[in-house]
């Protein structure tokens, strides 16, 4: 192992400030948390419903990102053309737009009077906005771009000659994708899914705009925190702590796939 280059003294102060900047909010949460009533609060039906809904919806949004995002990423990585560039910009847009704007745009497309929403409603049997599937859709809209871009980057980083070697061994494009590309892409897929899931779990703006804030149906944890903050700050803090706990529980075991390795 080569020793790390010595750290310039001048950078100590800003680096420490940056670390403290992230640490203090956590300390604040812990310090103000209603520790004595935490257990009973966590068991309350409102929190339990929000937690369950959040886990379900974020898992569904992550699954949709995988099922539709992987083929899209594979197509984006398969060449370069104006159409690909245009589609990439389109996919990147939800990452830069405020999620609220995304929610508004989704209403105009998939809402009751939206572009295809009115046509889709009789076919689906229900309207998407202000329902649990609407939450999933809003979360997917915001989360999938992270997955697609991560996977496209991973695919472009793969040595294309492995696929060529597989082809000379008699494997057609489908078999090459299944048996060579996807297995070699696994680390990227894992971190891409994690990224998408984290984004879906924390989704607020698009969800509240497109799916509303209905307890039990569309009130996910971030929405519950927001709602509780006005009436019951202790409940908001409890929910926030819970989200910190979930994030830590998921990130810690997967840190090797998530953080750059040392």
């Amino acid at each position, binding site marked *: 192992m080569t020793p790390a280059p010595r750290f310039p003294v001048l950078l100590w102060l800003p680096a420490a400030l940056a670390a403290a900047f992230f640490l203090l909010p956590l300390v604040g949460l812990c310090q103000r948390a209603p520790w004595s009533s935490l257990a009973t609060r966590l068991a309350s039906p409102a929190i339990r419903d929000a937690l369950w809904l959040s886990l379900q919806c974020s898992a569904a949004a992550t699954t949709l990102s995988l099922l539709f995002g992987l083929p899209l990423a594979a197509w984006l990585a398969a060449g370069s053309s104006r159409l690909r560039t245009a589609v990439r910009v389109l996919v990147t847009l939800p990452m830069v737009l405020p999620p609220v704007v995304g929610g508004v745009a989704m209403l105009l497309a998939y809402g009751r009077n939206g572009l295809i929403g009115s046509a889709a409603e009789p076919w689906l049997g229900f309207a998407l906005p202000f329902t649990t599937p609407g939450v999933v859709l809003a979360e997917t809209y915001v989360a999938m771009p992270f997955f697609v871009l991560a996977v496209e980057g991973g695919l472009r980083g793969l040595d294309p000659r492995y696929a060529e070697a597989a082809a000379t*061994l008699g494997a057609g494009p489908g078999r090459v994708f299944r048996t060579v590309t996807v297995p070699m892409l696994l680390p990227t897929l894992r971190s891409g899914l994690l990224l998408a899931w984290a984004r879906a779990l924390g989704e607020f703006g698009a969800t509240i705009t497109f799916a509303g804030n209905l307890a039990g149906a569309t009130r996910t944890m971030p929405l519950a925190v927001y709602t509780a903050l006005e009436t019951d700050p202790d409940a908001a803090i409890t929910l926030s702590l819970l989200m910190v706990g979930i994030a830590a529980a998921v990130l810690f075991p997967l840190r090797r796939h998530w953080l750059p390795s040392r």
Partner: protein
Amino acid sequence: MKLAADLHLRRGTLRLDAGFVVAPGSTVALLGPNGAGKTTALRCLAGLLRLDAGSITLGERRLDGGPDGPFVPPEHRGIGLLFQDHLLFPHRTALQNVAYGVRGASRKRARAIAGAWLERVGIATPELRPAQLSGGQAQRVALARALASNPSALLLDEPLAAIDASARFELRRLLREHLRAFPGPRLLVLHDIADALALADRLVVLEQGQVVQAGSINDLVCRPRSRYVADLLGVNSFVGDCRDGHVRLGAASLTVATATTGEVLVTVHPRAVSLFRSRPEGSPRNVWLAPVLGLEHQLERVRVELGGALPVVAEVTRAAVDELRLADGGEVWVAIKATELVVTAR
């Protein structure tokens, strides 16, 4: 099944215009300087690149007929390709890598076939992953993988280039054995002449996308047609202007035994360059005094590097080195018979 190629392709700065034929049961080595288009030619044959024009046929089957002709994708060509850096799938064991290409067999049967191939190339650890294999072992597994897919023709791209010296000799022996046992056409891209001598029956030399010479090793040694070929084979070569039986080479001049006129390539094998301590009497037409610059000891003989107006390399026995006291340096008389100088018009 004969492999016949007439390749025409432009890629970046490379312009490939090369035609050659590989007979079934024969091994052809494709040699040439870096960037000559050797690997590109191999990629065309394997179906990884499409021709701009020309054709590739294997037996009666046309694999590529240019933009308007047929194009058989690599997975349907039945052409095995061994890459320089083996390209074993990192997520599969050696056995799984070899079994990958076995066609038309049950999973169990494919594993059995793969195991037998691994044994044949001397790999006793089928359960290891590529990262756990040495370079030589990985290349053996890659050879087994290419052969296990039962191809009709075999292409090898610099199979020995990434192998260290200790494993190289053994791998070369193994390649030779398996190439001989393979019934179809075999084409190797090589850059080392020793590997070509050990493995190939015929050489095709590619320079700037064009075939400059093709033939047996003997043909090439006797009459190298370019400076690259001469250098590759360790033959002296000069480019000069030929007139009235003399070739002008800058300040020097050589007497030759041909009536060619114009720019020529003159080559002479180092063994045809004689050295003397005192001026030789008799027939040689080209005699001059040159300083000894250095000695390069080989197994049997010694290559003597000579300076002066016409720098040449002579190859003499060890006894001659002692007799002529060449190790002391100084100047020696160089003599070349006019008939030993091979003159090729350019």
